Each structure stands twice: as structure tokens, then as C-alpha cells.
């Protein structure tokens, strides 16, 4: 009987305690924000959409190798002597034409492992997080600045150069035809 009355009392009392708490919260300001109108200020280290600054990229492929999900795809063509590719902002001399620099952002896991090995700090994560698309193919970001014709031209240039070099080298040492085959590795 004592337990019975205690249960009744406990039931009512704890409910009232809870009601007091929720009532107090009725008048506290909301902690949520009206998202598209108001946006949270993101911290400066935030990891969102990847961006590649192609002016600085030297095509070293280190980001691609660091990526655990293989979402970065890079193809390069060696430059021929006499072509000036410019230098990166931290003073490295570029030696490769980047003919293809694709990031499949749908695959990206935002782990930032690609950012650290980059010698020129040209790949980094931005604070852009609204990049929803209707088409999955739109997630394939192409960063290469060269047009298709240009990169084809570069490839031809390099092959021509290789062939000339091979021809020049063939006179004293004529036994290396294999080298001409691995063109743009």
C-alpha cells in the first residue's frame, strides 16, 4: 500500500518536474538557424569541396596516390625543352603539361589526405558545401586548363621530340626503341 501511494506520488511529481523543465525551455531562444537565409560561420580549417589551383600544379601525382578512394585522376605530358610552363607561386619550376586533372567529388571522402603531400599547396579543401547536382556526371570536376586540342598537340609535340631524340640517339646507340613507347608516363 505504501509502495502504491509512493508510485502515485512519484508518477505525478516527476512528471511535474519534467513539465517545469520543458516549460522553461519554451522561452529560451532557439539554437537552430534558418538555414538558407542564415548560415553558420565555418571555421577556417573546414573540409568541404576540393579545389585545385591549376596555376600552381606541377602534375606530380602525389595527391592522387595519397587518395584512399582513388577519386583523383591525373595525366601529364612532359614538356619539351624550350617550352616555358612558368613557375609556381612558391618558386618551383613546372615541367609537365597537366592534360587531365579530374576529381570525382562523388567519390571523395573528405579525408584531406591529398592536401598534405602537395608540394605547392595547390590542392585544398574549400568551405563550399552546397554543390548538389541533378546529374551524377556533374560531380566529375575537370580542372585541367588545357583544351583537348591543346593537350593533343602537346602530346604530339612530345612524341615528335622523343622521336627526334631517339633519331639523334640512334646514331651512336641504336638499340633503345622501347623508350619511345612509354610516352607520357
Amino acid at each position, binding site marked *: 500500500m505504501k509502495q502504491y501511494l509512493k508510485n502515485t506520488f512519484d*508518477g505525478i511529481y516527476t512528471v511535474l518536474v519534467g513539465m517545469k523543465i520543458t516549460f522553461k*525551455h*519554451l522561452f529560451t531562444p*532557439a539554437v*537552430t538557424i*534558418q538555414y538558407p537565409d542564415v548560415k553558420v560561420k565555418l571555421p577556417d580549417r573546414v573540409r568541404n569541396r576540393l579545389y585545385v589551383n591549376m596555376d600552381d600544379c606541377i602534375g606530380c601525382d602525389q595527391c592522387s596516390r595519397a587518395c584512399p578512394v582513388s577519386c583523383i585522376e591525373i595525366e601529364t605530358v612532359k614538356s619539351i625543352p624550350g617550352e616555358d610552363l612558368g613557375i609556381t607561386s612558391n618558386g618551383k619550376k613546372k615541367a609537365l603539361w597537366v592534360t587531365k586533372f579530374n576529381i570525382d567529388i562523388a567519390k571523395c571522402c573528405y579525408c584531406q589526405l591529398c592536401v598534405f603531400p602537395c608540394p605547392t599547396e595547390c590542392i585544398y579543401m574549400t568551405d563550399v558545401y552546397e554543390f548538389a547536382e541533378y546529374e551524377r556526371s556533374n560531380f566529375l570536376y575537370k580542372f585541367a586548363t588545357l583544351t583537348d586540342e591543346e593537350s593533343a598537340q602537346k602530346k604530339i609535340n612530345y612524341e615528335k621530340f622523343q622521336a627526334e631524340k631517339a633519331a639523334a640517339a640512334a646514331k651512336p646507340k641504336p638499340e633503345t626503341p622501347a623508350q619511345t613507347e612509354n610516352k607520357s608516363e
Partner: protein
Amino acid sequence: MYQFLYDLIGNEILAGLLVAVVPLTIILVFALFGIWLERKVSAHMQDRLGPMRTGWHGWLQTVADLMKMLQKEDIIATDADKTLYNIAPVLVFSGSFAAYAVIPFSSKLLGSEVEIGIFYVLAISSLVVAGILMAGWSANNKYSLLGAMRAVAQIISYEIPTALIVLSMVMLMGTLSLDKISQMQTSSFWNWNIFGGAVFGLSKFLLIPFMFIAALILFISTLAEVNRVPFDIPEAESELVAGYFTEYCGMKWGMFMLAEYGNMFAVSAIIVILFFGGYQSPIGYFGNSIGVQWLVPFEQGFWFIAKGLTLVFVQMWLRWTLPRLRVDQLMTVCWKYLIPYAFLNLIIIGIISLL
């Protein structure tokens, strides 16, 4: 109301239909408002904002939702029993709608002046039970069936404490008519039944604590009858997905929702009438004091709705505070706690009223 309209129009059928339209309007408007209120109350209690975009503080949100529901495809599961599946929401809705027929919103605005009003309300809610069982069974879904079983067991059980409290009040007031009960608690809040009624004397003061208990028991048991937290086990979304209306969509689902919110106000109205003076003003009428008699019914309507909404707010407040009970604990609360207390209360109120 009917008499007034009959005098105005002179056609029985038209007047009757018009009388029926009034509660329908009220239930629809209240459901729209109630759903919006529920969202805002829950949001602010949880430190959120709730709907904010459609209109001022999202007050058009339910209207927009209603539009959406009306446009939705009406999906019926292949294995569902189509006839019963389609009838069930109508039955549930008409059950809760029919309860409004006897609720006096003010001394002039009351659908039907039946003498056995409160008894009628108790009875008509059994239509809802049948509808719920129909919905749960016809959907041919195990969650629906479990939900329907729970709902019916719950509603039938909780009718007993409700009926006991109503019985004690009827004993005290000597009438079953909701209008007469309201009329008896006139002039100021001190005359409300929760404060012992309008008869001044020793019994009035003796009654006060038991009236509080009675009001509490009635509130708890009506909470269970309309399936609100902590007694929302028929729809317990974390266990049974959505209980007996798991399979419903579109406007049929909307009718269950309308019925639920309609019921919420209906049971609040019953509590208001039995304990909180019905449509009577707690502080006297403005219309009387300035001599404008026609203002009084409007004031009464205002007070009735204000009181009803306060209780609805308490229901929501509880919902966003408490966890839900388990099905056997629900029965324990009813059979081992509420019914004995209600019985004791009935006997004590009976003895006091004989003094």
C-alpha cells in the same frame, strides 16, 4: 441554434444541414490550428523554431500540408481489404465529428440540446474504436494490427475511469446535459466545479480537493482515449512505425489526423464543461456591464475556446515532456491506479453531496 436557423430559413432540411456545418467548420479550423500549434510548441520546447517560411511564423504550414495531402496519390496496398480500408477513416472521423454535435460553445451556439449530452459523447466515441479496429485489420499489416489491438484495448479500458468521473460529476450536478452543467457554474471562477460548484456551503470546501483529483483523473484518462503521449502506444512511432494508420497515405491519413486533433479538442471541451465552468466567463461579462446583450454569447464562445485551447496546450506540453508507457503498464495505470482512485473519489463525492 437549430431553432434559430429554422426561424431564419424556414426549411427544416436546410437548417439541419447548416447546423451540421458549424461543428465541421470548427473541427477543420481547429485541426489546422492545432497541428500548427503542436509544431510550434514542440519546436520551442526543444529550442527550435519550427515552421517559419509559410506565412508569419509558418502559420500557413498546415494549409500547405493539406494542399499536399489532397494532391497525393491514394495508394492502397494490394492485399488490403479495400472496402473496409476506405470506410475506416470516414468512421473514425465521423466518430470524432459527431461528438461536437452536443458541445455547447456558448449559450447560443450549441448544435443539439440533448438532455443526455455527456452520455452521448461517451457512446459516440465507440465509433472511433470500431473505425480504428477496421483500419488496423483491413490494412493487412502486422504493425497496423498490433496498433489497432493496442488502441482498442486502451480506449475501452480508459472509458471506465472516464465514465466513473463523469458519473460522479453527473451525480453532483443532477443532469446529463452539457448545457445545463455549464449554466450552473456561472458568474465567476469561484463557482466552477473544480472549486466545488456554485452551491455555497461546507460541502463546497470539502469538495475542492476531490474535485482536483477528479479533474486530474479525467484529464489522464481522456489523454489515453485520444492516444496522446504518454499513452500513445497505438501509434508509438518507434515501435510500430505509425500503428493502425501505417499503411494510409494522402487525405485518408489526413482524416485520421483531423480526427485525432478533433478529439483532442473534444475531450478538452468535456473537461472544461465538467470542471472549468464550460463557456462561463471567470470574471463576468463585458457585454453585461456595458449593457450590450448580444456581445455575451461571443464572449462565452471566446472563453470556451480559450479554456479548451489551454487544455490542448497542456496535452501538447505533456507530449513533449514524457516518454511513453508500455502496453501492460498502460493497463496497470488504468486498472490499478485510475479506477480505484476514481471509485474512491466517486464514493467520497457521493457522501459529500449528501451532506
